[in-house]
């Protein structure tokens, strides 16, 4: 373990610092050897700034990719601090692994990881302000209350701003109680995105908008196909192009630097590069053939999960159900293409831009530049989307390399859409084989999931694991030059489609209602669990029942209306959905509505939560319906929005959302509503047409109006 990691892993503690201008900062700094008595038992990471005039600033340490954490995390602090939200300023914090923890946008984990610690930050600061007021008035602290940035006692009140200097000299209290849920004023309300005004006026600066004195823009020429490398290039004409300042080779790429993005992109077209094939260049058809060939062989690796004995169960089965599924590569397609600002100096580096994993970016750049991590600063801008693409750090590393090679100049490396879609990372391509065995008593006795993927695998504990006596999950990974990355709802995004479609098929083959089958299995997972059960059967069953209720499951909605059901557990949250399709006179189907029930524990921001769920459903439907990256000899066939179809306004269904009332801590919400959406639609299509959709995009099926 590195020295830095050691430092980060030490217990953190709360520290008070009096600001020069009179103010209170509650921060979380690593333990200093000289003051061990100040050690706190909680690991907190946010900080609050209150100035003498009472202005409250709350730092938001996590990267904002559109998931709303710059609003929802400060809500947790403001709730406990008891300040008027309208008067709170929110500031994005840069990477600081001493003050903060888990500065990551990923795994639907920001609120989950901060729920306790951020409220504790607010409550602790409030307690200190109360103590300062109590001392001022010579009254017991327990008799004081707070409201909207004021401490109150028997008709008297005093503002936080007036108390802050005194409060900053007090000892930090330990284990301060947080508010009971019934007294929440902010948590659970509809609170708007804190950057809204700057956004609607066009003032908000994204990474791609970064401009500095002396900065050059850079574009990068990348291999035209996965599996090709650069042999040589001629930049004579490019260097004469207007605005072009430098042409540099690094690794397997060429950077063109100049005055404007347009000029460098034009200049790049004049570079004559020679490429060679490293090995055979593969196409989509090759991948499908190879993945299917893998699934035709017996699994070689140790199963990812093995309950009971599937071989015996299948041999004694009364009925076997088998369905295979195929998933294409998908691009992340953040609206803001990859970009990053870097200014590498002799012994330090400044990095500035859109990144979901700033800590990993710092570590990678420090390694590449061979400088200590504490000489690398990272500031995160609000991102024009992430979807997992910005968990990768390749574009940050490139910017640092280009800055260094250009002679330590400040650079902003901007990817064109074609580079972003054609030369980046993709959601893995999968082929899944599912088999299920039903016994003579019409009971589901075995389940086998066999997965092969280019860069991906399976999610071994996914339901119905825990409810089936004989269950096995096997995986193969097919190695290829295509780079893959997590994509919103990693693995779940296709597991939920395939497993929930397969569940639907099993129910039909058993002659059982699909909702009833799921509820029966959950009952088994509760009464006689098999192996590890990572979900709570009762919570899972509750969302399923509620979705069936609001979606009108089992009720006639007209001769041409058909319903499909899907439910999936991911990122600790439970989601059930009913898709409603209409069968038109020509036999084609049209998606009308999606009903969705979510149990994500306590909802922190109702407005943010609803838009995450709505967006996830439409995103899930859109990608299942329309999207794919195909390759011809290693070269992506889709490199821009004219060929890669994204769902648009005229294609969205109506959506009705219900959040389960809950007293438990919040769970993930940026991803969980996406995975089941494709299955709910596919199951409705099956109900309407009898056709089982087994591959995406669905639009290739010709079933849709």
């Amino acid at each position, binding site marked *: 373990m590195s020295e830095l990691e050691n430092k980060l892993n030490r217990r953190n503690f709360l520290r008070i610092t009096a600001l020069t201008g009179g103010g209170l900062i509650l921060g979380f700094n690593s333990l200093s050897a000289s003051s061990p008595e100040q050690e706190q038992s909680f690991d907190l990471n946010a900080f609050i700034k209150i100035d003498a005039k009472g202005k409250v600033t709350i730092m938001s340490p996590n990267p904002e990719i559109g998931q709303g954490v710059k609003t929802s995390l400060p809500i947790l602090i403001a709730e406990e601090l008891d300040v008027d939200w309208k008067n709170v300023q929110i500031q994005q914090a840069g990477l600081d692994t001493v003050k903060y923890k888990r500065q990551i946008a990923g795994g639907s984990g920001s609120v989950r990881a901060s729920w306790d610690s951020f409220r504790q930050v607010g409550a602790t600061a409030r307690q200190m302000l109360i103590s300062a007021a109590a001392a001022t008035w010579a009254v017991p602290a327990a008799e004081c209350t707070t409201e909207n940035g004021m401490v109150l006692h028997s008709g008297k009140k005093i503002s936080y701003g007036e108390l802050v200097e005194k409060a900053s000299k007090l000892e930090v209290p330990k284990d301060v109680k947080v508010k009971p849920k019934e007294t929440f004023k902010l948590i659970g309300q509809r609170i708007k995105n804190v950057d*809204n005004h700057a956004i609607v006026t066009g003032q908000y600066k994204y990474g791609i908008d970064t401009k500095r004195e002396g900065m050059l823009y850079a574009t990068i020429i990348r291999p035209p196909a996965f599996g090709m490398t650069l042999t040589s290039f001629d930049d004579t004409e490019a260097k004469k192009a207007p605005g072009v300042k430098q042409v540099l080779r690094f690794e397997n790429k060429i950077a063109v630097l100049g005055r404007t993005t347009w000029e460098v992109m034009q200049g790049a077209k004049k570079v004559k590069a020679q490429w060679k094939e490293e090995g055979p260049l593969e196409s989509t058809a090759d991948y499908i053939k190879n993945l299917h060939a893998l699934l035709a062989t017996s699994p070689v690796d140790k199963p990812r999960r093995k309950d009971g004995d599937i071989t015996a169960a299948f041999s004694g089965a009364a009925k076997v159900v088998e369905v295979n599924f195929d998933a294409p590569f998908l691009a992340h397609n953040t609206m803001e293409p990859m970009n990053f600002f870097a200014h590498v100096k002799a012994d330090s580096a400044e990095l500035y831009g859109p990144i979901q994993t700033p800590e990993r970016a710092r570590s990678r750049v420090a390694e590449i530049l061979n400088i200590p991590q504490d000489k690398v600063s990272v500031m995160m801008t609000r991102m024009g989307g992430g979807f997992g693409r910005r968990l990768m750090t390749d574009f940050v590393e490139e910017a640092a390399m280009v800055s260094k090679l250009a002679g330590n100049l400040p650079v902003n490396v901007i990817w064109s859409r074609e580079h972003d879609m054609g030369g980046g990372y993709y959601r893995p391509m999968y082929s899944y084989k599912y088999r299920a065995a039903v016994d003579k008593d019409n009971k589901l006795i075995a389940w086998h999931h066999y997965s092969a993927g280019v860069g991906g695998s399976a999610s071994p504990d996914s339901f119905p694991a825990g409810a089936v006596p004989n269950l096995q999950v096997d995986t193969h990974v097919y190695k290829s030059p295509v780079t893959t990355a997590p994509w919103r709802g990693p693995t779940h995004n296709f597991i939920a489609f395939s497993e929930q479609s397969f569940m639907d098929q099993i129910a039909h083959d058993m002659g059982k209602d699909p909702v009833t089958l799921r509820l029966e299995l959950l009952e088994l997972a509760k009464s006689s669990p098999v192996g590890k059960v990572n979900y709570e059967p009762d919570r899972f069953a509750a969302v399923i029942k509620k979705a069936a209720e609001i979606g009108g499951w089992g009720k006639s909605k007209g001769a041409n209306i058909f319903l499909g059901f899907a439910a999936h557990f991911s990122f600790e949250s439970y989601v059930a959905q009913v898709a409603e399709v209409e069968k038109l006179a020509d036999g084609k189907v049209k998606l009308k509505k999606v009903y969705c029930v979510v149990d994500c524990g306590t909802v922190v921001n109702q407005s943010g939560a609803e838009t995450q769920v709505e967006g996830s459903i439409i995103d899930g439907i859109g990608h299942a319906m329309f999207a794919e990256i195909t390759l011809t000899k290693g070269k992506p066939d889709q490199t821009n929005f004219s060929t890669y179809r994204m769902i648009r306004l005229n294609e969205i269904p109506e959506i009705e959302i219900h959040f389960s009332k809950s007293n438990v801590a919040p769970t993930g919400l940026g991803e969980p509503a996406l995975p089941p959406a494709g299955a709910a639609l596919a199951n409705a299509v099956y109900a309407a047409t009898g056709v089982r959709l087994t591959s995406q995009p669905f639009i290739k099926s010709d079933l849709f109006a």
Partner: protein
Amino acid sequence: MKINVNSTDYTLDVPDNTTLLDALRVHLNLTGSKYGCGEGACGACKVLIDGHAVPSCITLVASVQNKAILTIEGLEKDGKLHPMQQAFLDADAFQCAYCSSGMIMAAIALKARNPKPSRQEIVEAMQGNICRCCVYPRIINAITHG
């Protein structure tokens, strides 16, 4: 080359093949209009030219010299937001919000030619703008009220 942006005249010394988007973003530092695709397919760069919503990434600056160009930065007047900006705020119609500026400009153009669009008219008119986060239901809501 002379252009009029947000009621201000600018003189630009740029090559003839410069796009309006680059002129705005790089030369005039008006970065509210966003680059998304460079082929007029996503709508993130839309601005109004004589009241029509046009993708500035495929519009040459030379072609709009005698026209009134309005960008997101020019909507607020005397500290008061344009009703469409206010409607997007009221609907909280944002996630990553990278598409918002193009959405708002396209919506203003729609409302100018059809002050009371139906839901169907809104979704048809707004097909040229992609929201990758799929905040679409709120965008429809905002445009209905904007």
